[in-house]
């Protein structure tokens, strides 16, 4: 283990956000702020039905189509598919559609107002086919809409012997838990600008997380060599996973219009289009059957996990994988069986969203733990403590917890800071005589940092630092900034390791023509994995300068640059690259689904204090405590901001955010009626970090960004259970759901006495 007291000058300091001043001055350039010479605008004609054959596309003669560029699947020079895990999603629908809002025709014109009118003059006629619109319809195979059986992916995770355990149980507790779709609602909608020239190929600028993902799709769609495709991330106004896969589609669309029109083409969605047409969080249905002994020890867990993947496979298999690997919670259980399936439906494909399957899985297990505690008449805290993983224990995948673990301490701190027991006692007394019922709820959980299993090995990430002839020290990564702090944290790491000032370092432009592929900016991997690469590359450069350019120990800034010029004179450039190396002992078996699921885990205990108004049926979170251990904290202000933001999204997931479906289309695709928390809805969020540096993460970091979305929903619903005595099993939990639950009980028990 790394010495946690290791002194650092810059890592761990609350330095201001690297690109902060540009953002605060209104100077930061987001894609819609950029104009190109001779630029046109693009728009998309989309499917109005969930599934069917395209009979005809007609262009109303009231429009002079000679002014427009029209693109269909027939204009695609290469393969008509978006490159993700399986290439099953067309770039443009060709003859059939599999979900509402699937793109069929693209239009471009120099005047965006004329474009809007023209879009209504394109008529698509269909021969509708039967559609499946829910997990149940898909698993019943009411119609086969994907592959041979509608099954996008399945996993079977087994440990011990579940079947023999039931007969030894004091109690068997069953429960079914459901989570809804959730919209990312980044405040900047998806948008790109594309250019094409026969000489240079395709260039795409855009609001996106993963420049090399977009690059990969463009190479195939245009059948171009890699060197003729360039993707540049522009300042990105929020992403949360929602700009992981979708920009590949949008980037190809704009580039097709650019190629055919001979002009740069900008496509920026408005809010309604972005909400209706782009990815969301996978809805889930998770069934738990759990055997416990009379003392609350978990004996067996059988988990049936199903997600709705939407019309194409996109990232559903890896989301399902992460859900599977988080489904048993931070507990020891000798016998486990998880059957996980992701089902195709005729809705917009679900995609990556902060937490990536874990929020669904954590909601189910952490709600279920409270239901088990109720059956045992046991304190839910005590039940958790009796089953917590400790150092040396093995998980459901037989991964041994080799790093020190402090779940008990996190629990202690969360209970202490929230004054949990005292408040429960007071609320229990007051609730009898009040129309406002208050309660406390807890969730304990982990989030695996970085790609699952062998993922990081396959990614084979490359990152670098260089010093330009102009004397700029740069971090070269494809890891992007979209609010979470990539620029700041990687700069801090480089400055620390190069023994320079924070202001001496800059980020190279996130441009595939300039930066190497350090992997996608996802999976809470940037600080831990890419940060480690930058730490190594920086230390390697210092070592080279010491060895080959007479740089002495405790160098000054001036010494450093003099030495760099010596190295440049000898080698022609000053560049230090590092490639990913797996930490020792990371072994993962994809077939058996066993081994080291993640190199490291972030751990957390969250507490929600909730009040339920039994007159208005509103539930409000009054106070929230988030205690976590995420390795070394690189920048306390940014890290706290990540936790607070994640908790707010998790609160919305629990109590506000409901996607309303009508025949496979999102009906409430406006901010007016898809409701996210405002400044008046968020309670005080108290954030605490315990720091256990992880020796293979950048300066001891583990993953942080996704963790805070996992815990709020179960903590809040557990608090509502504590307040009302009713265990709700689905989110979002809106006032009408609370009404239904409370009414159902009063019908059984008679009206509540106040």
């Amino acid at each position, binding site marked *: 283990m790394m010495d946690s007291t290791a002194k650092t000058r810059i890592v761990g300091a609350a330095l201001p956000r690297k690109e902060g001043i540009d953002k*605060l*001055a209104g100077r930061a350039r*987001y894609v819609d702020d950029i104009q190109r010479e001779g630029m046109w605008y693009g728009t998309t004609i989309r499917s109005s039905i969930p599934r069917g054959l395209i009979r005809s596309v007609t262009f109303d003669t009231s429009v002079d189509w000679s002014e427009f560029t029209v693109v269909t699947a027939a204009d695609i020079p290469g393969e008509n598919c978006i490159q993700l895990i399986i290439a099953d999603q067309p770039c443009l629908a060709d003859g059939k559609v599999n979900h509402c809002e699937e793109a069929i025709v693209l239009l471009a014109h120099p005047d965006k107002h004329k474009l809007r009118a023209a879009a209504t003059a394109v008529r698509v006629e269909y021969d509708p086919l039967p559609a499946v619109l829910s997990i149940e319809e898909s698993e019943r195979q009411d119609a086969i809409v994907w592959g041979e059986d509608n099954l996008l992916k399945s996993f079977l995770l087994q440990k011990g012997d579940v079947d023999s355990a039931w007969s030894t149980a004091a109690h068997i507790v069953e429960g079914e838990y459901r989570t809804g779709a959730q919209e990312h609602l980044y*405040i900047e909608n998806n948008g790109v600008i594309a250019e094409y020239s026969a000489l240079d190929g395709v260039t795409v600028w855009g609001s996106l997380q993963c420049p090399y993902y977009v690059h990969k799709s463009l190479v195939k769609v245009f059948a171009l060599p890699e060197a003729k495709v360039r993707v540049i991330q522009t300042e990105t106004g*929020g992403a949360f996973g929602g700009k992981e896969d979708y920009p590949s589609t949008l980037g190809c669309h704009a580039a097709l219009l650019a190629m055919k029109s001979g002009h740069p083409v900008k496509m920026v969605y408005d809010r309604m289009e972005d909400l209706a047409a782009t990815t969301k969080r996978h809805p889930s249905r998770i069934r738990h059957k759990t055997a416990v002994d009379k003392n609350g020890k978990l004996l067996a867990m059988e988990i049936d996990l199903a997600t709705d993947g939407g019309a194409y496979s996109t990232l559903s298999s890896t989301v399902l994988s992460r859900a599977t690997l988080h489904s048993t919670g931070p507990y020891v259980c000798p016998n486990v069986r998880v059957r996980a399936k992701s089902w195709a439906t005729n809705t917009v494909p679900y995609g990556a969203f902060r937490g990536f399957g874990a929020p669904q899985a954590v909601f189910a297990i952490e709600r279920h733990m409270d239901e088990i505690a109720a059956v045992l008449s046991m304190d839910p805290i005590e039940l958790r403590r009796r089953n917590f993983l400790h150092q040396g224990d093995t998980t459901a995948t037989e991964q041994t917890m080799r790093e020190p673990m402090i779940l008990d301490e996190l629990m202690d701190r969360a209970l202490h800071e929230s004054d949990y027991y005292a408040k429960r006692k007071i609320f229990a007394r007051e609730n009898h005589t009040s129309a406002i019922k208050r309660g406390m709820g807890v969730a304990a959980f982990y989030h695996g940092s970085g790609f699952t299993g062998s993922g990081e090995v396959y990614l084979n990430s490359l990152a670098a630092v260089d010093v330009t002839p102009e004397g700029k020290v740069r971090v070269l990564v494809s890891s992007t900034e979209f*609010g979470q702090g990539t620029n700041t944290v990687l700069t801090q790491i480089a400055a620390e390791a190069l023994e320079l000032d924070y202001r001496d370092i800059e980020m190279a432009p996130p441009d595939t023509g300039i930066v190497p592929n350090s992997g996608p900016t996802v999976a809470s991997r940037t600080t831990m994995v890419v940060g480690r690469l930058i730490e190594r590359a920086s230390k390697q450069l210092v070592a080279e300068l010491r060895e080959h350019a007479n740089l002495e120990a405790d160098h000054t800034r001036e010494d450093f640059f003099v030495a760099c010029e010596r190295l440049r004179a000898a080698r022609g450039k000053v560049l230090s690259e590092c490639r990913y190396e797996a930490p020792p002992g990371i072994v993962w078996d994809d077939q058996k689904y066993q081994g080291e699921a993640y190199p490291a885990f972030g751990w957390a205990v969250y507490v929600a204090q909730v009040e339920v108004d039994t007159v208005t049926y509103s539930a409000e979170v009054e106070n929230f405590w988030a205690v976590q251990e995420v390795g070394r904290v690189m920048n306390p202000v*940014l890290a706290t901001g990540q936790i607070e933001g994640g908790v707010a*999204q998790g609160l919305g997931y629990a109590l506000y955010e409901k996607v309303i479906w009508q025949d496979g289309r999102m009906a409430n695709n406006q901010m007016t009626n898809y409701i996210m928390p405002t*400044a008046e809805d968020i309670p005080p969020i108290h954030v605490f970090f315990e720091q256990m540096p992880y020796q293979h993460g950048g300066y001891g970091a583990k993953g942080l960004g996704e963790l805070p979305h996992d815990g709020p929903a179960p903590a809040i619903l557990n608090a509502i259970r504590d307040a009302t005595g009713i265990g709700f099993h689905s989110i979002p939990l809106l006032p009408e759901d609370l009404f239904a639950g409370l009414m159902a009980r009063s019908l059984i028990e008679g009206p509540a006495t106040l």
Partner: protein
Amino acid sequence: MSTPLPTFHFSVNGERKQVQTPPMKRLLDVLREDLCLTGTKEGCGEGECGSCSVRMNGELVNSCLVPVLQAEGATIQTVEGLATDGRLHALQEAFLKCGGAQCGICTPGMLMASAQLIDRNPHPSLVEVREALSGNLCRCTGYMRIFESVLAAAASGKAETELAEKHDAR
């Protein structure tokens, strides 16, 4: 022949502006397209998110809901008008220090709503800050760092002075 477009006059960040444009064009688009002031952002186009907030005649408005004809003769302030002589406004400084901006897309609107609050109420309580910012959605921060930023700027007393100076300048 189409009729010539009408001309509108107003001041933006202390500078007199004149634009010839359709009268129903959104103030947001006039600022961004005709005046190249792209600091003001569009988030929803229906007055829900507040990203396009600007100050017009001393009121906070969603510029996506204001047709330019309503801005005739108005005094408008956008995020570009907050800093003076290359020096950040106290609110901008506080947002930088306290982590009030993450992705930055709601930030210009948040800053304008915060400036409006502090101008009217130099020492707001947390409850007043929450209320004043409740028309501006932020998806990144969970609002905590933004509240802290506004309270820090108010406590510094500098925000008040700067806003007063700006009013004098007009």
